């Protein structure tokens, strides 16, 4: 599998089909993976592919407009590429997408063999990849129990009172240091000037106090409504362990229930917030 990948990378760079290959390389700790940016054929041997390749490399795509890029993606990362294409942020003709069959990635921070997101991984529509590399030694993913409910934690939280929920999130957000790693790592956060950086007017306080922290985290989550692909990078990057995915998952669940919409699974689909349907549950839209 790795050989196939390296050969393809060499071929693409040699034939100048791409200017840049965005993949994974081994990190300095010799265990973890790190994003790798390859422009020379001979560098292709540094590419790796294993359960440490957690990053969603799609978040780098917008850094290189006008360049032809090849990118390694896990099926879950591909959902982010679909949304970026739907939102006209990247050009399909500049991309060579290499899908990799994935047996799930690890959660290094919590020391888990499988990331939470891998328990309910959904493959996007086929046809997106220019090349899909299958894994002959594919390991079985953790079995999905019949009664698996991906929104179990959300339902539990919904059952709580508003006051209890507020208390929970106040406690979580009190730790936010406003490093904006959640924003920077997110493939969907690409505003040229983030609302958090605007000063005229300043929409919310720069102070890392509860008011500003609440405004920031809620604004971020709402801006991702119908756009979040659930890659979980925000939560993985958060140095203080705020369960950021839970907020986006709640929105994801609502959208699924209200509009039967799932993000980033079908390239033909219109973005949720720019589509109109007479069967929308709200009366006013008719």
């Amino acid at each position, binding site marked *: 599998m790795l050989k196939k990948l390296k050969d393809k990378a060499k071929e693409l760079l040699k034939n100048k089909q791409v200017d840049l290959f965005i993949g994974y390389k081994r990190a300095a*700790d010799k265990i973890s993976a790190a994003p790798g940016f390859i422009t020379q054929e001979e560098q292709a041997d540094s590419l790796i592919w294993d359960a440490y390749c957690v990053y969603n490399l799609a978040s780098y795509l917008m850094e290189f407009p006008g360049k032809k890029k090849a990118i390694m993606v896990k099926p879950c990362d591909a959902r982010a590429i679909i949304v970026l294409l739907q939102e006209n942020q990247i050009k399909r003709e500049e991309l060579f997408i290499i899908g990799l069959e994935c047996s799930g990635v690890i959660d290094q921070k919590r020391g888990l063999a499988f990331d939470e997101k891998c328990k309910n991984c959904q493959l996007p529509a086929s046809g997106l990849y220019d090349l899909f590399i299958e894994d002959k030694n594919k390991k079985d993913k953790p079995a999905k129990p019949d009664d698996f409910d991906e929104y179990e934690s959300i339902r539990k939280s919904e059952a709580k009172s508003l006051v209890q929920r507020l208390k929970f999130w106040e406690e979580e957000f009190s*730790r936010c*240091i406003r*490093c904006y*790693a959640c924003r920077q790592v997110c493939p969907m956060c690409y505003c040229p000037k983030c609302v958090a950086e605007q000063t005229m007017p300043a929409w919310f306080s720069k102070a890392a106090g509860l008011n500003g922290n609440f405004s920031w985290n809620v604004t971020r989550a709402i801006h991702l409504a119908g756009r979040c692909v659930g890659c979980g990078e925000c939560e993985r*990057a958060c140095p*203080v362990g705020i369960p950021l995915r839970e907020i986006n998952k709640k929105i994801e669940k609502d959208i699924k229930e209200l509009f039967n919409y799932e993000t980033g699974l079908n390239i033909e689909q219109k973005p949720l917030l720019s589509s109109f349907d007479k069967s929308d549950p709200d009366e006013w839209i008719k």
Partner: protein
Amino acid sequence: MIRIFKKEEFNKAVVSWLGEFQVIGPKRIGNKGLFYEPIEAMEDLYLGPGITVEPMKKFFLIPSEYLNSSSVPEKNKRLIVGANPCEARGICLLDKVFDSEYKDKFYIDNRQRTTIVGLSCIAADEHCFCTSLGGDPTDTRGMDALLFDQQDNFVVEIITEKGSQLFGALGKELEADEKKEWQKNKAKKKGLLKKKINAPGSLGHIFENEYWKEVSAGCLSCGICTYLCPTCHCFDLVDDERKKLRCYDSCAFSDFTLETSGHNPRPTKKERYRQRVFHKFDYFKTNFGENLCVGCGRCIRSCPVKIDISQVIANAPI
């Protein structure tokens, strides 16, 4: 002065200090890791191997504070227990900035009202590299007193007057053989460090090198490395509801050097990441004679894309 006492005696002492001081120390928060938190009961205080996610810098250089005279925090006495030696060294470096030629009243107030009781490292992980930068797991610089974990006992080295007032007559002085044992154990601690790198002398001549582009390629431009650094101290001044707010800022942010005209002298990650490395291993040394890094490894541990500053400086093409 060096004294020895049973751990239970120390625990009792901590409880007795709760009345006089606001006691702060490492506390385990769920699966999030260790955080410096106010300690209300002895069970909260974690004095074991490991390192907190955030450094104790935040108690001296407050992440967000209003610089109005009316907002000077209540001058209660604070006691930080369980700080790692590398962090206390970090505070010594911050002193050079905020309590030397320029006196920062807020910082100095916080320093004066705080007593720091450290704990010699029990373990080091693969990211620690303090010994490469002149540190040591038993370093007492910046400490008022430093505890040393020795089976059922703590040996404490009392460094300052504040430390001496705090420990008073707790425990007893070490006898000759106890002192020998302690010194032997202490000497072993250096061996905890698995990583040893050579810090560069100066970097000026490789300022324009493409190396900086290469090492910063994966950088996300988030503020983790700077906010979690025990020595990074850049801040921003903003008007917040008609008050002047000082809050942390980061050279990794794209708008850090953005000028009103729209010009940005550090337009890409290359210039921004290079700035971080140069500030730590070149400019600060020129200005204050030391590297602005204590090798705690926080920026490496928490970097979402595994950028490793120890390797960046070790492999710099000097």
